[in-house]
């Protein structure tokens, strides 16, 4: 059995645009779930609203497609009602960081046994390209026509600070690393948060001179830097580049978790 067997063949091809990274993240998540040896009957995928949240509709397992930003609230309910279920949450940056921000920090604080895969495409893709809390400074969107002026919300740092047990960030180009990170998140008891930076050529790239899928992926590849490399640069006293996004595993710890079956 491979990850392709988890897809609902009758629903494919999905509605994502050409070159959308969300399909890649679903592949990596399902591959990790497959590696864990979980079955269709004991796994639940939960999502909110947005491009990323269409994902559970293409997967064979039971799923909940919930209200905007409240995926984590519903997931908490599912996990506490039946701790035997493995709960995976698909969510996006607008869903998790903007409208569901409070649910996110409190889910991290409670340390519920969930795995959250956040497909951060740096924009509200489904509603037409409005600026999200993760839109980079200077990027053009329909609500920031002169360039986004606000500082970017660093979701992984937020999860580390709020108390998640496992936090990692990769891009949709790093498929192997992302799969391993999701698998480590699934193995960790307690709240695990994996942020996947994905390309959005349609809503983000079109307005920011990254119209081709390859340009957008190249942008993701060149704008990230490994956390280990940042540490080495700090130890050597070299200046750390400010504009690069750190990727890698941020934290792995054993705070007491909620919802773990004894």
């Amino acid at each position, binding site marked *: 059995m491979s990850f392709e067997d988890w897809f609902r063949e009758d629903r494919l*091809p999905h509605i994502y645009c050409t070159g959308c990274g969300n399909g*890649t993240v679903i*592949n*990596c998540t399902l591959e990790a779930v497959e590696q864990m040896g979980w079955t269709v009957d004991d796994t639940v995928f939960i999502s909110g609203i947005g491009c990323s949240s269409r994902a559970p509709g293409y997967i064979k397992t039971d799923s909940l497609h919930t209200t905007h930003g409240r995926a984590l609230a519903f997931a908490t309910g599912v996990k506490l009602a039946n701790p035997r279920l493995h709960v995976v949450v698909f969510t996006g940056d607008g869903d998790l960081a903007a409208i569901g921000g409070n649910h996110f920090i409190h889910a991290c604080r409670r340390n519920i046994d969930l795995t959250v895969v956040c497909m951060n495409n740096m924009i509200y893709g489904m509603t037409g390209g409005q600026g999200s809390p993760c839109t980079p400074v200077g990027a053009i969107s329909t609500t920031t026509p002169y360039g986004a002026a606000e500082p970017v919300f660093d979701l992984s740092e937020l999860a580390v600070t709020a108390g998640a047990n496992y936090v990692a960030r990769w891009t949709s180009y790093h498929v192997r690393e992302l799969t391993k990170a999701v698998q480590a998140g699934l193995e960790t008891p307690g709240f695990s948060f994996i942020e996947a930076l994905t390309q959005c050529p349609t809503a983000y790239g079109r307005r920011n001179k990254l119209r081709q899928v390859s340009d957008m992926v190249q942008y993701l590849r060149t704008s990230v830097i490994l956390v280990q490399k940042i540490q080495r640069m700090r130890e050597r006293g070299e200046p750390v580049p400010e504009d690069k996004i750190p990727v890698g595993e941020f934290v792995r710890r054993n705070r007491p978790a909620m919802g773990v079956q004894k």
Partner: protein
Amino acid sequence: MKLVIDESRCKGCNLCTMVCPYHIFQEGDRLNERGIIVPRLDRPERCPNCRLQKLYGRRLCGACALICPDQAIHWDEEKPYEAQKVVIEY
């Protein structure tokens, strides 16, 4: 095993051309019946998964299938299976 692109699913994003270490996927040049330029396969028998999956009993590499956002890349069982002599250039 045989490497196949499912033309009914591929949307022509050419992400597979960026990840294949053997550059088996090349950008295509003709439209298919859905109006999409599907990547062209350049000597797909060089793919390590095609050659060695039987020997190792698991999926090798598979980066193209993992990165394909439209789940269009898969491997078909070839019958009768016959070993092929291929030249690998690095």
